[in-house]
């Protein structure tokens, strides 16, 4: 099993744990719940196998659905996002970026990376809540849920990024 697969597996389990234990219990205004499973596809490097991405997105969604009792919802959204990830990355990757660019604040720059993360989260939550509502009735509530959840998930990812950056820099300082 390659390191990439292990890393992704580890990341997926961690995300699912956070999602199921912590985030699934947040219901802002009674209906907005952030879903950070989208983060599973965000740090996939450019040029990854698309089939592989799709399977990761699907399996991640499946596990989320099994534990959240939302069968099909996470699967459909995760697969959709995995399909769009290369397109989004192409949209925000710097011109001089390497072919195997690994998206992060360091490699892409803070502005482009945050835009990339925000758009990914937005697409994920739009698809997720559209499938959840499954109707155009009461659309203001659905729109609010999309917007609030996107914002919360985005802030969560930014927080995680800042945390991991600070941990990484403190480690580097210790090594040096």
């Amino acid at each position, binding site marked *: 099993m390659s390191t990439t697969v292990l890393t992704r597996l580890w990341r997926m389990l961690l995300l699912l744990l956070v999602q199921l234990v912590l985030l699934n219990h947040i219901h802002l205004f009674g209906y907005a719940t952030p879903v950070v499973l989208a983060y599973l596809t965000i740090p996939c490097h450019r040029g990854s196998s698309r*089939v592989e991405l*799709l*399977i990761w997105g*699907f399996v991640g969604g499946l596990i989320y659905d099994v534990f959240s009792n*939302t*069968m099909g919802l996470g699967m459909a959204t995760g697969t959709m996002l995995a*399909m769009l990830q290369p397109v989004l990355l192409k949209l925000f990757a710097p011109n001089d970026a390497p072919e195997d660019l690994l998206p992060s604040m360091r490699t892409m720059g803070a502005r482009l990376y945050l835009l990339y993360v925000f758009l990914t989260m937005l697409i994920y939550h739009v698809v997720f809540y559209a499938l959840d509502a499954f109707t155009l009735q009461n659309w203001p509530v659905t729109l609010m849920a999309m917007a609030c959840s996107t914002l919360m998930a985005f802030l969560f990812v930014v927080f995680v990024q800042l945390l991991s950056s600070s941990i990484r820099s403190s480690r580097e300082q210790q090594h040096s």
Partner: protein
Amino acid sequence: MRNLIEFLQRYLYWLVFLVLEVISLLSLVRYNSYQGSVVFTTANEVVGTAYRMGSNVVAYFHLGEENAALETENELLRKQLHDLQQQMRQMNVVPDSLPVNEEQSESDYRFVQAQVCSMTLHKANNLMTIDKGERDGVRPEMGVVSSNGVVGIVYLTSQHYSIVIPLLNQHSQTSCRLRGSEYFGTMQWERGDADYSYVNGIPRHAQVKKGDWIETNGFSDIFPEGIPVGKVVKIGDSVDGMAYRLTVKLSVDFKTLRNVSVITNYSKPERRLLEQKADSLMMVSEE
């Protein structure tokens, strides 16, 4: 073959994506009661709409049959109405008289359903062709009616077709009366508007008002009495000023007329024979 494999390899992710999405959406609908009910309701509505559209198309092709059936039913009802009117009239006039013997009743007539094949509207002497002829029992001088009222009189017949002189013919003269009274006159069309004709000869002491119905009076042996002809829309005077000249809006719309009925056995040979004898006697006495 190699190209096909290359193509599949290049776009395999699309196939995987579609398969995974289909599995996901099927799971969504299958395991979530809300989404399932929405899909079921929508599918029901779509299928219902498709069925309704299909049924409308099929119904459209059966309109002819339905129209014919309605026409037959109309004729039956009209005959029943006529019978009842006859009976009521007789009861009022001769309260103690016995009910009319069915065999002798004037209303004991039959209809032959026919369709208009061709017709002119703008000539002075319009003619109409219908798709029933001698083989169907149609003979000259039989009355032709539609569900709305009098249409005309059969003029010529062949085996399968007949020519009818409609009311819209200057040679057509139909004896008719004001409904609810015994004042009668003769309807004669004048070239022009196909919706209107004229009744002459209603005496000036008759009480006529706009909207009154004009109907057949049964004097001829062509039409039974009580068949509507039209409604009075204008009351005028005849040329000599001795009678009314009524403008009548015909109850039959000749422009859209399609289904008609020929009254095949209203004419009474006995009456006709007697009238012919009377005519010949008159001619002899005149000579």
